[in-house]
């Protein structure tokens, strides 16, 4: 708008992901710090799926740090089947106008035109998401090309670092969206954090082979080895349905949570939203968590994620 933004960072076509990451993630390149910086501001917070402006207001009032604007929450997408696409711009704009907190929206994996549309709408963060039906069986979006930052799902360090190499400024676990079953979010968080600990403790001569095995950019593997953390913020998502679920993931070591169907498929969404927000702050205080967990009504019904056949799992989408 009134200010000029460094756009030179997005003009190095042709270089490979890791090299580009190396060039673009330097502290003096404002583009990267400004994109990743918003995710830093979301830490310790809860990002909630909403399908109407009214729900967005309820989420904001409950203390959500951001909302994800959708036409259907993942449990409904799962139930309805069919092709799931980007939401109607009217719906997204309606939600943007209803709240003052940042608004995220989902584009299909590889669907860079949906992403262009979301950026044009003023969406604050794009989720290139496995919850929608993938548009490309081989390639993800080249996320360096946008001023709009991206969050992407991952199940392990290789997937996380490939997405970061493509320009993602925030990572979340995939979990198994729309189930209300926390088990896969826990598995993925443990996998990613365990992979990080393994890399951190590796002698440097093993890092190239690790990069090969993880199918991850070497420079990013070296970066994780050096710092002991992902170069971007790491949230949990997929199946979080109670305050205890949120606190579990926080104690395992993520920096914040996404709650999809878990809020507005519960019997008292405002109360559940408020409780999950407070539990994410006091995730390490059992007395507080006991108090927060009282009298919330029924959590979302849910389905056992381990009983979903592999072909129907959303988490296997993404390459």
């Amino acid at each position, binding site marked *: 708008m009134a200010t000029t933004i460094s756009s030179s960072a997005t003009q190095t076509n042709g270089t490979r992901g890791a090299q580009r990451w190396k060039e673009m993630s330097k502290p003096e390149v404002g583009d990267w710090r400004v994109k990743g*910086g918003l995710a830093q501001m979301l830490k310790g917070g809860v990002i909630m799926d909403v399908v109407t402006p009214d729900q967005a207001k309820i989420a904001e009032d409950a203390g959500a740090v951001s909302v994800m604007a959708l036409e259907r929450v993942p449990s409904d997408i799962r139930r309805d089947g069919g092709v799931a696409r980007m939401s109607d711009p009217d719906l997204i704009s309606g939600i943007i106008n209803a709240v003052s907190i940042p608004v995220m929206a989902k584009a299909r994996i590889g669907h860079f035109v949906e992403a262009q549309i979301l950026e044009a709408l003023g969406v604050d963060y794009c989720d290139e998401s496995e919850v929608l039906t993938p548009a490309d069986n081989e390639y993800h979006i080249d996320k360096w090309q946008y001023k709009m930052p991206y969050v992407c799902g991952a199940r392990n360090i290789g997937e996380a670092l490939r997405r970061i190499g493509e320009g993602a400024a925030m990572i979340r676990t995939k979990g198994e969206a729309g189930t209300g079953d926390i088990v896969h979010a826990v598995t993925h968080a443990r996998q990613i954090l365990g992979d990080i600990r393994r890399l951190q403790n590796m002698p440097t001569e093993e890092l190239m082979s690790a990069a090969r095995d993880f199918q991850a950019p070497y420079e990013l593997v070296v970066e994780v080895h050096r710092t002991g953390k992902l170069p971007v913020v790491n949230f949990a998502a997929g199946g979080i349905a109670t305050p205890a679920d949120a606190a579990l993931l926080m104690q395992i070591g993520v920096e914040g949570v996404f709650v999809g169907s878990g809020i507005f498929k519960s019997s008292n969404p405002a109360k559940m939203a408020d409780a999950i927000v407070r539990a994410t702050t006091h995730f390490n205080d059992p007395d507080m968590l006991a108090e927060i967990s009282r009298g919330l009504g029924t959590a979302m019904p849910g389905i056992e994620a381990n009983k979903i056949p592999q072909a129907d799992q959303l988490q296997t989408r993404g390459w």
Partner: protein
Amino acid sequence: MNRLNGNAPSRPRIGVLALQGDFAEHIHMLGLIGITAVEVRKVQQLSEIDGLIIPGGESTTIVKLLTRFDFIDGLRSQVESGMALWGTCAGMIVIARELTDPYPTPLGLIDIGVSRNYFGRQVDSFEQELVIKGIEGAPMQAVFIRAPIVNDVGVGVETLASVQNGVGTQAVAVKNGRILATSFHPELTRDTRLHELFVELATEAANDRIRISPDITEGTPSQA
């Protein structure tokens, strides 16, 4: 204040409000200049620190959690008794006197009016060099993320830095006594100069609160 050591401390005790936001980055920056800061999640902790940073985050969330966890009165009385305070971005919004938005309700700890998300949405976030009064050497690299701006500077509040925009010059860093507010995020850079300034303010607070023995201060908090 019950201190084990009656001498003036060389290092003040600093806390970073850890209800939500990038508190870890502030703690890291303070670590770089030799200060071990604590995460503040309960109002009782405020009586054990000389300075508090309210970090970047979502201002609506932070105000809600401050209210929900009964921080408001305790925070106000600590600030009135001379505790140093610094709000960055969301933190600036939280401590302002009033906002152009109807929501959230700020705490009114510094006499400034603030516009939230002044520069626009995330795609309008940016970084620029900024000359800040009291900070020597090269300009600081200021990161503005969905940043607020000060549209009304009250009496006694000093403007430390401003940016130019379509309507003129507006403040993005202000100070009143031991209270500091910045629209941008020094904690996202490696430049510790503003953190050093805050440590000076907190040291002042520590010395000030120590000069008067606890039995004399009973009921009459020392004032900056």
